[in-house]
């Protein structure tokens, strides 16, 4: 295969769930569909790199730094809700029950997949804890990885003395947060409990 084609296939194969055959299908599809759409895809991908940034406070991904939530003075700065990914913030927001701030870890602890504490934003979270912060709410998937991460945070924050809570288990075991309905997540927020 030509070096150009081969390189394109390799780049697609780095995406989750894409194997060589699927990557080849994508590449030949792009070649067939004409230059305009391929360039539109390229510039959309490029904009992810140039326009989207990490909020230096909460580590969420968005177009401004600090992000809209971190700069919103009406939000309660004494509450921090910890989520795995930026995409989970709208899920909590949709419950209409939470007016605090967020912290995005950028994933869940998964040492077997090479995701150790250094790959996530734990130290940024620790730096945010000051006497103004009354409570950290850990809102993660009800999976082994979610539990590991929640317990790890509880241990990490213990010396600060801040209250650490986690969502009550109304979530289905093994379920991921974006698939749960608003009511369930709302109830889980109400029934949050102290992490030991």
């Amino acid at each position, binding site marked *: 295969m030509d070096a150009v084609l081969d390189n394109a296939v390799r780049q697609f194969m780095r995406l989750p769930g894409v194997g060589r055959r699927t990557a080849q299908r994508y590449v030949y599809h792009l070649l067939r569909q004409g230059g305009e759409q391929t360039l539109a895809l390229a510039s959309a991908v490029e904009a992810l790199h140039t326009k989207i940034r990490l909020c230096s406070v909460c580590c969420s991904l968005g177009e401004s730094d600090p992000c809209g939530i971190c700069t919103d003075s009406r939000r309660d700065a004494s509450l921090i809700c910890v989520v795995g990914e930026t995409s989970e913030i709208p899920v909590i927001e949709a419950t209409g029950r939470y007016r605090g701030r967020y912290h995005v870890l950028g994933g869940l602890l998964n*040492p077997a997949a090479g995701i150790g*504490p250094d790959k996530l934003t734990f130290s940024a979270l620790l730096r945010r804890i000051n006497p103004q912060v009354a409570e950290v709410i850990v809102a993660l998937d009800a999976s082994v990885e979610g539990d590991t991460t929640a*317990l790890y945070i509880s241990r990490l924050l213990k010396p600060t003395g801040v209250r650490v809570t986690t969502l009550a288990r109304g979530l289905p075991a093994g379920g991921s947060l974006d698939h749960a309905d608003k009511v369930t997540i709302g109830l889980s927020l109400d029934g949050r409990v102290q992490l030991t």
Partner: protein
Amino acid sequence: MHGIQAVHLTSVQLRGFRSYRSASAVFAPALNIVSGENGQGKTNLLEAIRLISVGRSFRGATDGEMVSWGQPSGTITGAIDDGPVRQIVLTIAPGERKQGTIDGAALNGLAELVGVLRTVAVSSDEIEQQFGSQTGRRRMIDVMISQVDRGYLTELRRCRTIVAQLNAVYRDPANDDALCDVLERQLAETSLRINRRREAFFHDFCRAVERHFSRLFGTGNLVLESRPTLPGKGELSDLDHAVDVLRESRRSARRAGFAVRGAHRDRFRVLLDGRDIESHASKGQVKIAYLAWKLAEGDFIERETMRSPVWLIDDPFSELDARRAVALLVSAEQRGQVILTNARTDGVEMLKNGHAHHLRVHDGIVEGGRDV
């Protein structure tokens, strides 16, 4: 036994499975005898039935090995009379996840399959690959309990995930003690839950194995013994103790590169007159102990579910002397459906109860239907 509902496999269809390009077999509710020359696929038929029962080959085969040569995938369809008739469809393909349906609804993971068709499999492969070692017996126990308790299977999977995470941390030169603390606590929790279930199972099971051993097969004192690697019987107060033990073994776990204690490492000994059977018993004695274990598996499934298991017995007459083979078959047949393979015919004639459904396997085809 009183109030035990008979469950039986009424038919099975195989497509692209081992020696079967396309075949189907119909079974009678009691004794079924599958005969045929060696290498014609008798054992493959039992393997397929066991696969839709527990999601795993009793020969430890991979999906790639079970799909017929030159076929992209293999499909097994089983119909089960459990009061209502239930249908299981399972499709396997090399390197892909098993997929299937139960009563037409798509399986959401292989765990949903387990417990629909409950089987006791008797095969010489299992004696060698599983029964002959303390860890193999743990796997046999896990499959057995999973067949009657879905929650147990979920807990086993949770344990496996935690162990994989912990092993990665132990191997990591960064030596993150905080992460070890967290994962060891999770391992202790899941191990104690698993142990509690195993303990509840084990007491009655041991007595049944011992009883079958002496009643059917003669002298000698057979004893089963569980050797958990973490202390405690699952009480909440045991958790801190178990966590401490894991922390104390952390250095050796790091050296080994894996979690050396936990429910995934527990061992089950079988002692004949006080000595381990794997090192001190004859091959014949091991076989007898294995059969006693199998009969106790049947007891366990009946007691827990009030339903009879389906017995899958691979070629007993080549493995056992005729008297013991017949004793096994009579005992199994009194309790439910038996599907047995047999290369010879003389052994079967020794069964006093001559009423059996005969199937014949030849060249990837199952012929059957004759009532003898």
